[in-house]
């Protein structure tokens, strides 16, 4: 049996955990860069990965908003939808420009231009919603964002003359590549690159003084304010920033990169709940944990559509097959629910938390600090002993 402690000591005395962690990240990135070049992989597998990257952006940005800043919002998918719908409408219908009194032809808007406009629109709505949410906390904030999210979805569903209703809206394709295989390859790299850029941006904010202030606000808004933190500014800032990230991701993904059209069904509360579930399973206070939770969950949910168990020793099923085949249907979501319940009950920091803390070396620091804990009496005795 492997002695984990000896292995751990060898790592600590050798390369060190943090460096090993960077090496693992480098290997993971190398795997994702290599994956589409593996000729045995189908386009379907690449599509699953592209979808995984998109959901990783959604969950990690939600982790910044809810896990780090403490703003438990259900409006994340709606902001994604705003980015996608605005990008689609701006490049298709002249009515938006007519409303604004600007003489621009929608045909003159490129896919990139539409994506930028969609991103800015998501940020602008984020600014308004962030301002409206200033005085709302916890359950009230969640309820408000659910109402906002549903309002937007129903508007998109009802105004079918403009939005295509339940049939959805096609955006201007971002890529024009005739060969299907080559197109999937480029789409894959585009979405993976987008995930890396978004994660870097999220990490930059989380590790800056802004990230520190956001965590202080999550812990106690009044105390943070008394310590000089402009709570209003940072609350609005985090809403605008995360809205722009998901608006951008949505506009790119639905510009025929990951999906050929945005449909209102994507904006349902169930979809939003899945984003939250992915983040919780991975670790909602860790950006990389939430991203990994989303990617792995998406992959497993897809892989578990059909479970095939080969029977050993020449055994056969009742119908003579040598493998047991189970079309899981919605049962895979039930299993996903069980994982979520387990996580919330036993590993509230997420299933990936122990791995992340091990690589960061935080568990060593935590063990050291735990040994230094003391009551007021012990503290007083220590000071007295020091004085003597």
């Amino acid at each position: 049996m492997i002695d984990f402690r000896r292995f751990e000591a060898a790592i600590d005395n050798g390369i060190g955990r943090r460096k090993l962690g960077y090496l693992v990240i480098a290997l993971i990135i190398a795997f994702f860069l290599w994956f589409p070049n593996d000729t045995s992989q189908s386009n379907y597998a690449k599509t699953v990965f592209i979808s995984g990257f998109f959901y990783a952006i959604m969950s990690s940005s939600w982790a910044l908003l809810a896990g780090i800043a403490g703003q438990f919002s259900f409006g994340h998918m709606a902001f994604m939808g705003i980015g996608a719908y605005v990008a689609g409408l701006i490049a298709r219908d002249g009515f938006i420009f007519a409303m604004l009194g600007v003489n621009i032809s929608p045909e003159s808007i490129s896919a990139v231009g539409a994506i930028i406009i969609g991103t800015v629109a998501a940020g602008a709505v984020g600014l308004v919603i962030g301002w409206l949410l200033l005085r709302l906390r916890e359950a009230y904030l969640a309820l408000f964002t659910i109402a906002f999210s549903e309002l937007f979805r129903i508007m998109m569903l009802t105004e079918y003359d403009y939005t295509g209703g339940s049939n959805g809206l096609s955006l201007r394709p971002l890529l024009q590549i005739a060969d299907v295989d080559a197109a999937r390859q480029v789409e894959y790299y585009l979405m993976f690159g987008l995930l890396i850029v978004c994660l870097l941006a999220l990490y930059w904010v989380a590790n800056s003084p802004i990230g520190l202030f956001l965590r202080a606000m999550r812990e106690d808004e009044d105390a943070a304010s008394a310590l000089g933190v402009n709570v209003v500014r940072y609350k609005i800032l985090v809403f605008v920033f995360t809205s722009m990230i998901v608006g951008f991701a949505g506009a790119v993904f639905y510009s025929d990169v990951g999906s050929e059209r945005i449909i209102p069904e994507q904006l349902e509360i169930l979809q939003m709940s899945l984003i939250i579930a992915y983040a919780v399973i991975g670790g909602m206070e860790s950006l990389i944990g939430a991203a990994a939770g989303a990617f792995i969950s998406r992959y497993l949910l897809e892989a578990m559509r059909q479970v095939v168990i080969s029977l050993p020793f020449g055994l056969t099923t009742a119908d003579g097959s040598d493998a047991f085949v189970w079309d899981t249907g919605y049962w895979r979501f039930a299993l996903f629910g069980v994982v979520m319940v387990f996580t919330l009950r036993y590993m509230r920091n997420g299933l990936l938390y122990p791995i992340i803390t091990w690589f960061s070396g935080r568990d060593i620091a935590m063990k050291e600090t735990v040994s230094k804990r003391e009551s007021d009496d012990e503290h007083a005795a220590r000071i007295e002993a020091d004085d003597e």
Partner: protein
Amino acid sequence: MSEIQLELNKVSKRFGGLQAVDHVSFSVTKPELIGMIGPNGAGKTTLTNLMSGTLKPSSGTIYLNGRRIDGHPPYDVTRAGLGRTFQITRALGRMTVMENMMVPGLAHNPRASRKDLEARAHEILALLTIDHLTHELSRALSGGQRKLLELGRLLMLDPAVIILDEPFAGVHPRLQDTITNYIYRVHDNGKAIMFISHNMGAVFELSERLIVLHHGAVIADGEPGAVRNDPAVIDAYLGHDEEN
């Protein structure tokens, strides 16, 4: 020594039918140790909340170093030079002691280097005898240690005026000495310190000036020895004898 000019002019606060603070006026113009006392419900914490921007006065004005601060948000009042602690400690629980120190440090000095701020935080934590807990989550600290952490955070802000709300409440007597030393040391650095306490021994030991509140109004303001013998103060604490 930083400039100190805190001035309250007829500050009042009404909650519905309750007059919590009633036309309070006083000024602080030098580095003083000011005790603020009064029976329960006298309006001490409400007055602190008004000065620190947590509450907006119903009427009256508050100036700090020539700048009007009443009704301004707490972060603005803090940056203007008035820092406070809370009666019930408000440590940022899931953040380490060092992170608790860095929040006011970076909020007050956004351009300062993290290294310099961390060095300063270490010094302050050593003064408060909790430097061995730098990497501990603040929710794991004992009650007295949390009080010390709150005091440490204030020093990162370097305010001209400090208001301490019940700094000794529920703290081990030996740690109370650490807090007392802190108060003297900060005062020696030219800060005005106003502290609310029910610990009369500490109040009379530390105060150079005593303000007494009763039913939201200032009933005495002066040197502790004189305030102690003020009939209005005795009446507020011991009650009025109808027959005499």
